């Protein structure tokens, strides 16, 4: 049995179904990201796991013990809140020591463990400061230290990086991952930021409208999205319609790509399917004969890459190219697009769309 099992977990507020039949198994030591837009049920899942919200139906089993009805103060989970929720009237060291105090850990042992934990998050110099004297990133690390010092079976992170500026957020992502690897604590992180979820999770759970959409490793999620929603929520996408003809996908008359690796092997001959083409898989066929004639409508410089919005017989497409130093295509110019045979992905038919 997995370390953490959520079985048919549901939460309703009257007629509003915040979480519908959530099933998830997390292995010991795993870092799982819960990803979705606001209102998708990811926070409700975390709150139910923490015990702040009572699930309407379903079970939560942690390390073989059913904790569905255990009050939050007896679950022993480490939680990092979005607002950090530090105790403003206590110093950094007192904040971190609080959980140990509640566990009646002796003073000397407490000091030793708080010291070690503050060292791990590089805050040993600031132990005597109050939270209001710290920067956002430092407060965040206090929150992480406070949650981890009790050596919880599991760490829950609620949008831990959303209050930090972009540069710091990136640094903290890797910092969080480093700490998690070092301690081996099973971790569940809630986030609405796909880049954050993809970059540090072992597996990502994508949620939408209270339901789990897909559970996969980050690169599989990106390369093989199982729904329209995921293909556009995780990364950027071009969604096209195609008809299955003779083992090929016909995007337009005369424009066919092999069905082969696209995940559409089950699609019946003659059926219309939705195809996802990632912008970075498309390339300009400089000089050579391409697959598709396009006209550059707009272009945006993103530093490491160029993002083009082009019009074509297939409609409007997004193309992103690495900024390799060559001069970019000017706006209003015509060009040829090409892409490898196996990058098109057929999305499964939507259940009720």
């Amino acid at each position, binding site marked *: 049995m997995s370390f953490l099992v959520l079985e048919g977990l549901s939460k309703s507020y009257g007629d509003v179904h915040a979480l519908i039949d959530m099933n998830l198994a997390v292995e010991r030591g795993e870092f799982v990201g819960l990803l979705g837009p606001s209102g998708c049920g990811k926070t409700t899942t975390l709150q139910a796991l*923490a*015990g*702040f919200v009572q699930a309407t139906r379903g079970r939560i089993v942690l390390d073989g013990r059913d904790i569905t009805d255990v009050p*939050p*103060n*007896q*679950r*022993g*989970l*480490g*939680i990092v*809140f*979005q*607002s950090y*929720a*530090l*105790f*403003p*009237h206590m110093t950094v060291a007192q904040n971190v020591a*609080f*959980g140990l105090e*509640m*566990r009646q850990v002796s003073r000397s042992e407490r000091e030793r463990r708080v010291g070690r934990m503050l060292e791990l998050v590089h805050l040993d110099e600031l132990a005597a400061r*109050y939270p*209001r004297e710290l920067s956002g990133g430092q407060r965040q690390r206090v929150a992480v230290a*406070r*949650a981890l010092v*009790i050596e919880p079976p599991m760490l829950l992170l609620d949008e831990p990086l959303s209050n930090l500026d972009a540069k710091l957020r990136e640094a903290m992502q890797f910092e969080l991952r480093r700490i998690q690897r070092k301690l081996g604590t099973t971790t569940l992180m809630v986030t609405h930021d796909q880049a954050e979820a993809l970059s540090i999770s072992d597996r990502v759970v994508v949620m939408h409208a209270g339901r789990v959409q897909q559970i996969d490793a980050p690169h599989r999620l990106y390369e093989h999205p199982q729904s329209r929603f995921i293909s556009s929520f995780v990364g950027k996408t071009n969604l096209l319609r195609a008809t299955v003809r003779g083992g090929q996908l016909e995007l337009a008359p005369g424009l066919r790509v092999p069905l082969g690796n696209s995940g559409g092997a089950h699609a019946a001959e003659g059926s219309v399917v939705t195809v996802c083409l990632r912008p970075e898989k498309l390339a300009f066929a400089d000089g050579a004969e391409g697959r598709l004639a396009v006209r550059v409508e707009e272009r945006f410089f993103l530093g490491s890459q160029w993002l083009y919005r082009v019009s074509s017989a297939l409609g409007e497409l997004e193309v992103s190219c690495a900024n390799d130093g060559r001069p970019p295509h000017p706006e209003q110019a015509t060009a040829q697009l090409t892409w490898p045979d196996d990058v098109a992905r057929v999305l499964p038919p939507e259940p009720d769309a």
Partner: protein
Amino acid sequence: MKPGRTLPYALVSPALALFALMVLLPLALTALLSFQRFSYDTGVQDGFTLSTYANMLGDSYYWEVFGRTAWIALLTTLLCVLIGAPEAYILSRMGAPWRSIFLLVILAPLLVSVVVRAFGWGLVLGPTGFVNQFLEWVGIGRVRMLYTPIAVVVALVHVMLPFMVIPVWTSLQKLDPQVENAALSLGASRFTVWRRVVLPQVTPGLLSGGLIVFALSASALAIPGLLGGRRIKMVATLIYDEYLHELNWPLGAAIALALLVVNLAVMLATNAVLEGNYRKRMG
């Protein structure tokens, strides 16, 4: 002169003038009055004397009244803390429609004149009031409450409660609700969360509420006057008597200034505690 320099002074001058005219001037006149001579035959005389203060400080009667005022005001403050703090906490936890309704219920007494409320308590606590009818019914028998400190304290607590609830409620509003959840997740019991996390953060609110309640209770006139009767003299009723019955204005002025000094001392002491312990942490 630069307009940037004078403008702020020009803007505060109306308030300053009002403050000087309505507060500082009467205070100065009261202070002057307290040093004037008085005799029952001739009334207030010109001249300067410290004898009024000497008489006041030397007479145990005045010490007794000040002592009674102090303990009644302290008891009122304490009861307001004990009732008002949980009340504010419950209020802050209430949902959308009920919070406004109960806030209004708490504030409603302020809309009714203190005199009316004092007479109301007189009816409730009197020899044939509700409370005594109930006590007789359960077999305890009548208890004398009106014209005792009980009546004064009960009515003062009722009047002062909003002044405690509002500051505490305000400091509770500033609390991050997740902080309580954080303490729970770290293994604290509900009571420990309250004692270790919530209470320290609302202490500034409790202190300022306590300060207001104490100062207002110590100088309350209508309630001790109407519910304390002639026996339960408090400082304010004593001043009233000196001015209007004894016509000993210098003595009344001296007692009033003594009350001001005591209140001021309590306030400055509390403020010092607040500054020392909380400003640094809570900002």
